């Protein structure tokens, strides 16, 4: 089957719809997923197609959205629960961290929790401090959870389908700014991208740029600009913060001996910290420069447009970081 150019939002919709058709146990719930077609319109038309039994509007109650998903997954369903924005996941943190992640382990494997918690994520658009988090590294901290964040429409479809079919609990983050971005998407209903496999988004030989989610776009734009200056960057999209494809990162690093990490999240105890640690632990003999990190600034995100933009990562910051390691 051929590819079709779709915005990431529609790629996700197709993935979810195909999996609901494929497996009667898959159902969706969350705030606004039904009558309002989903806050980000991923579940548009689902209420009509699948009915209120499988498309459940919930109260504003993240503890119930996440907690009841855990319970129903333990009882044999395969919930795809939606948290409107990942900021609100903090309200349901006990269900996510203490239960979704740990039930299997705490029951010595007697119960599984095959659920997906879809969260819209990302900074920007003046949504400010309590509304603008990209906190996926926090969730990736906890063993038991898988954490994925696609950078384009094709990956979004293949990764979400893998997440729904997997028996492990998956926190699946979707960058709001990427929802409208179009890209070629396979129409094959069995197109699945395996969990934990990263992807080389651009081959190169001089510097490895490791990123995920929206950072991939900044990295590719930076690489295009740097190519004109004779710098050949390889862009590694890890796709999954957990399980992390360290093999792919190391393979690239052995070739380039230099690394820049790009993320939308905050700098302390971050994705960048983890990649830098992994490289110095395992790749020390290959290092020609310190690992450089590009992230948001270490502040709660402010509202005023000028200082908000200043606090965020961008292409120029990636270019500057690459120039520091070559």
């Amino acid at each position, binding site marked *: 089957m051929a590819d079709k150019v779709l915005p990431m939002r529609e790629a996700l919709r197709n993935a979810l719809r195909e999996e609901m058709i494929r497996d009667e146990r898959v159902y969706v719930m969350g*705030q606004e997923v039904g009558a*309002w077609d989903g806050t980000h319109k991923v579940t548009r038309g689902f209420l009509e197609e699948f009915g209120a039994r499988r498309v459940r509007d919930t109260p504003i109650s993240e503890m119930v959205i996440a907690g009841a998903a855990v319970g129903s997954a333990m009882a044999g369903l395969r919930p795809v629960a939606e948290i409107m924005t990942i900021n609100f996941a903090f309200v349901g943190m006990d269900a996510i961290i203490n239960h979704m992640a740990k039930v299997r382990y705490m029951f010595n494997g007697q119960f599984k929790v095959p659920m997906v918690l879809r969260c819209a994520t990302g900074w920007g*658009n*003046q949504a*400010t401090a309590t*509304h603008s988090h990209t906190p996926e590294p926090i969730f990736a901290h906890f063993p038991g959870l898988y954490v994925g964040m696609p950078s384009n429409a094709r990956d979004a479809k293949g990764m979400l389908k893998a997440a729904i079919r997997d028996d492990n609990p998956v926190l699946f983050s979707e960058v709001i700014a990427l929802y409208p971005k179009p890209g070629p998407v396979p129409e094959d209903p069995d197109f699945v991208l395996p969990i934990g496999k990263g992807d080389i988004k651009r081959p190169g030989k001089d510097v490895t740029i490791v990123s995920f989610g929206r950072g991939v776009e900044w990295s590719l734009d930076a690489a295009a600009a740097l190519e004109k200056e004779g710098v050949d960057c390889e862009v590694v999209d890890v796709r999954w913060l957990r399980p992390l494809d360290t093999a792919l990162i190391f393979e690239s690093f052995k070739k380039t001996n230099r690394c820049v990490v790009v993320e939308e999240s905050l700098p302390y105890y971050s994705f960048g910290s983890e990649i830098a640690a992994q490289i110095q632990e395992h790749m020390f003999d290959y290092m020609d420069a310190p690992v450089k990190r590009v992230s948001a*600034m270490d502040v709660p995100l402010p*509202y005023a447009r000028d200082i908000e933009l200043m606090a965020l990562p961008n292409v120029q910051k990636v270019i500057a970081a690459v120039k520091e390691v070559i």
Partner: protein
Amino acid sequence: MNATPALDTPSQLLSPEALKEMYWLMLLARRTDERAWVLHRQGKIAFHISGMGHEAVQVGAACAIHRGVDYVHPYYRDLALVLALGVTPRDFMFSLFGKRGELSSGARQMPSHWSARKYNLVSSSSVVATQVPQAAGLAFAIKYKRDHGLIQADDFSQPRCAITCLGEGSTSQGEWHEGMNWAGVHDLPLICIVQNNNYAISVPFEKQMNIRSVADRANAYGVHGITVNGSDVLAMYDAMKAAVHRAYRGEGATLIEAKCHRLTPHSSDDDDRTYRSREELEEAKRFDPIMSFAQVLLGRGVMSTAEQQEFEAKAMEIVNTAHREAESAPYPDEHTIYDHIYAPINHESGR
């Protein structure tokens, strides 16, 4: 602000000036709110969340407390409430545009997330219901200070109750239950105003809870609960006055469910035509609290048509000036971005 004798309808004691001030505050909030929608649709501001239809709840509540002294922990629809406390349309316009010198946060917070220490107005989160345990904590501090002789019960310069507001949608959050329960356990001087507009964004009341009234939940926490017509500013004032007296006298917390109508979408980010019929909205507009209060005041001869027109002209002038000043003001200085993440270095603690 001494405790007045028990009276079912203390609003009968309101002077013509006080009644006209209530009307003025509601009108000023509405015109300011309407301008925010225009600015959003013109692409000049990033976001607006509206209080249109809720003005009577908020002004009725504000006028029943010791304004600027009693703690207020508002939510994002409380424009009329904060205008009654002293926040100005200019302050609000500065927050919409995110400009230098903005009152609440130096333009760090989203608009409609008000705070001002000088009015004992406490900043809130975009995550709903988080204000309820915090407001219970404010009320706890009042009781603690009184019980330990740190303030006197008749010291009217100190806050004597804490007010918090939220929508009925937010009462599905655990934090609401936990905060209310604690207020009940300790008989705290807390007044929780649930502005029930029947929608949690798009999800209607009957999909949020299987009871007819949010106030039914008061019994579960051992607090006093009542339901009031939130489109009637005087009914709201009366209900609130009774709650304030209970709080001031140390008789515990009150849950007020104020039933009202949201005359707009949830925020500038949604289109309510997808989940609410136009007929339903037209019906709601019949209960517009400002129009109905104007009829009351005109009917009683408290306000003349000429005065009503003067209020309109004055509100437009204030909003126009505020809009102009905010739009032309500079953005915050970039060097301030790290200010106030932490307290300054304290040499005694070695930090």
